[in-house]
């Protein structure tokens, strides 16, 4: 408040623009964090802990945050689950698979500044004590690791079964820590599935799952990992009429690549234009043209990328459906243009 009043001295700048000359974390208008540690995990992954500045709020186990970094001078945002337990300073565990993750894994140093958005997400522990089943694969273990770290050491009544798939033992994230936790606490049972030797869990019948966790149907279940795992598990829980007991966290969405779609995109308020092919989303096309596109998860979940359609037709790249109603709110992160499209952004 006092700061807003002080803006008569600094207009049209905000006083924070000047305070930031001294302390880069002082701005609540662009939340930032300073990296406090970078810990290598198994091959191609690191855990990055950071101290957030003003505007952050404590995370709950299982939530994620949007992390922004600058690569070649361009700000790039991605979502990462917070792997640290609730109540502690946040940390993310990143596996290098593409542009941003590789940058985070290879170039992050202690003292670097990350751009942040506050924690969000409803992939959360149940409110009351319940037996739990965690089904994870690859980097999908990160939100679950936060849940286990939060719950298991603190709750003697915890009853958690973790089934984690990784290609080989060397690829299994947090393997040593999980072994220690399981040894120290009766409430945690860990089963690893090494897909290079044992193959993937077979979801065509319940046999595999029955063998790994006989009472899976009565547990509150969490699944996080590659899209096929999520789809297979959802189908299984659905078929056994326990779909409500399953919570799903998606890291990626399979999008169509449609050679037929594509076209010119006009970003009206920003006074910019782009040409996008059938597999480029409106979000990516806008960002590449320098438009400040609103976004969150970048994969069709959070709806923070909604932008009104002014004219034209767009295609939902998850389903192939088209939309052409003027004024309709479009999820730009999963939509591509079909012909010329005008967006109100």
């Amino acid at each position: 408040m006092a700061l807003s009043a002080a803006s008569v001295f600094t207009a049209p700048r905000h006083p924070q623009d000047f305070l930031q000359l001294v302390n880069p974390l002082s701005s609540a208008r662009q939340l930032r964090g300073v990296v406090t540690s970078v810990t290598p995990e198994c091959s191609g992954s690191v855990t990055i802990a950071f101290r957030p500045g003003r505007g952050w709020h404590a995370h709950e186990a299982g939530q994620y945050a949007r992390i922004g970094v600058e690569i070649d001078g361009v700000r790039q945002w991605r979502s990462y689950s917070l792997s640290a337990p609730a109540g502690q300073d946040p940390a993310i565990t990143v596996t290098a698979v593409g542009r941003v993750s590789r940058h985070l894994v290879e170039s992050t140093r202690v003292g670097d500044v990350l751009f942040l958005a506050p924690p969000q997400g409803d992939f959360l522990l149940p409110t009351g004590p319940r037996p739990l089943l965690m089904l994870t694969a690859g980097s999908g273990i990160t939100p679950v690791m936060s849940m286990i770290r939060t719950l298991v050491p603190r709750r003697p009544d915890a009853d958690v079964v973790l089934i984690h798939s990784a290609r080989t033992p060397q690829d299994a994230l947090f393997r040593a820590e999980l072994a220690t936790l399981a040894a120290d606490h009766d409430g945690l049972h860990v089963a690893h599935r090494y897909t290079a030797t044992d193959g993937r869990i077979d979801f065509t019948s319940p046999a595999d799952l029955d063998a790994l966790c006989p009472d899976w149907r009565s547990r509150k279940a969490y699944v996080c990992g590659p899209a096929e795992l999520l789809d297979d598990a959802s189908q299984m829980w659905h078929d056994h009429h326990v779909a409500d007991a399953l919570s799903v966290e998606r890291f990626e969405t399979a999008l169509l690549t449609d050679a037929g779609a594509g076209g010119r995109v006009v970003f009206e308020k920003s006074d910019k234009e782009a040409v996008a092919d059938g597999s480029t989303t409106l979000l990516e096309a806008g960002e590449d043209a320098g438009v400040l596109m609103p976004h969150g998860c970048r994969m069709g979940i959070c709806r923070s990328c909604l932008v009104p359609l002014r004219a034209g037709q767009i295609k939902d790249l998850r389903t192939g459906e088209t939309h052409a109603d003027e004024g309709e709110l479009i999820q730009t992160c999963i939509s591509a243009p079909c012909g010329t499209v005008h967006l109100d952004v």
Partner: protein
Amino acid sequence: MTALQKKDHNPVAHLTREDIESLGRELDAVRASVVESRGTSDAAYIRRVIKTQRTLELGSRALLLASRWKPAFVVGTIGLTVSKVLENMEIGHNVMHGQWDWMRDPKIHSTTWEWDNASPADLWKHSHNELHHTYTNVLGRDNDLGYGIMRVDEDQKWHPVYLGQPVWNFVNACFFEYGIAAYDLELGKYFAGRKDKAVFKRDATKVVNKIRQQATKDYVVHPALALLTGSARRTLLANYTANLGRNLWTHSVIMCGHFPEGVETFTKTSIDGETRGDWYLRQMLGSANIRGTKAMHIATGNLSYQIEHHLFPDLPSNRYAEIAPQVRDLCERYGLPYVTGSLPRQVASAWGKVIRLSLPNHLAARLKRPTRRTQVEPTALPSRLREPTAA
């Protein structure tokens, strides 16, 4: 290019359609090479300039609190003037052009930027980016050409009021930021009854609020704060001087962009069916550069590279210097004028034109006119290079 053909010479008569399109492709390639290589060091550049400007502003304003003491007054006033110049030119003008939008930093973005100037960002962006840069030097379309109050081309009809234009121009220079605000508001169009009343009212409210905000800062709260140190009067004077200095400087730089002798103008019909190559050609012929030191270039917001800026208004300003030799080389090969000169020379040339054209053409013609329109021989024109092989 009919506007040019009426002139005593036509600087593009020797170009074939093929030459013009080839010129367009070459310039597209220059642009692409910069877009391709934009990166970390460019981002660091603009952040450094912004940080320098803010530190300078803060330091100068702090110093002015002690302006009872004369050296503090002098240094603080100079610092504040330089800071305001940087803020308007190298930062404000260029950020609002979208030169830094590619960084996707919401704090250095054309859609969020507001500047320390009487004209609100959105009005300025409309009249400058959309009208002036699209219709550069097109008579009757580009209002920047004489700002609607002056005659800066023989093809503009003379009227006795133009006799006073050297005076208007000086007054406009002193109050340039308000001149820009009035101009972005399209005051002239409004009084001629050609601007929608509701739109005008909305825009006018914005301008009044913006002027109030900036004037409150410079002329009320900072002097009031300086009351505590007995430096109020000097602080007020310093703010006034800084604004005046900034106004005179920006006015001079902007005059040099399109008014010096040798810069071409175009008729309304000449831009019908303009191709990308034609457009580039018009931007090049309609602009003039200023030669000088690196500090001078930065102080002009790199508008001293007006030709490069008009060709590529949204490329980062720190890169114009590096493409200028390429553009110049292109002009030589295609036999096109590349108008440039030192700051004093270009300012004098622009003023000379303002004074000369305050008179009707037949009187103006009697004044000795600086001859800057020497025909340039093309050194490597694509259409001529091809001929021997075609034969």
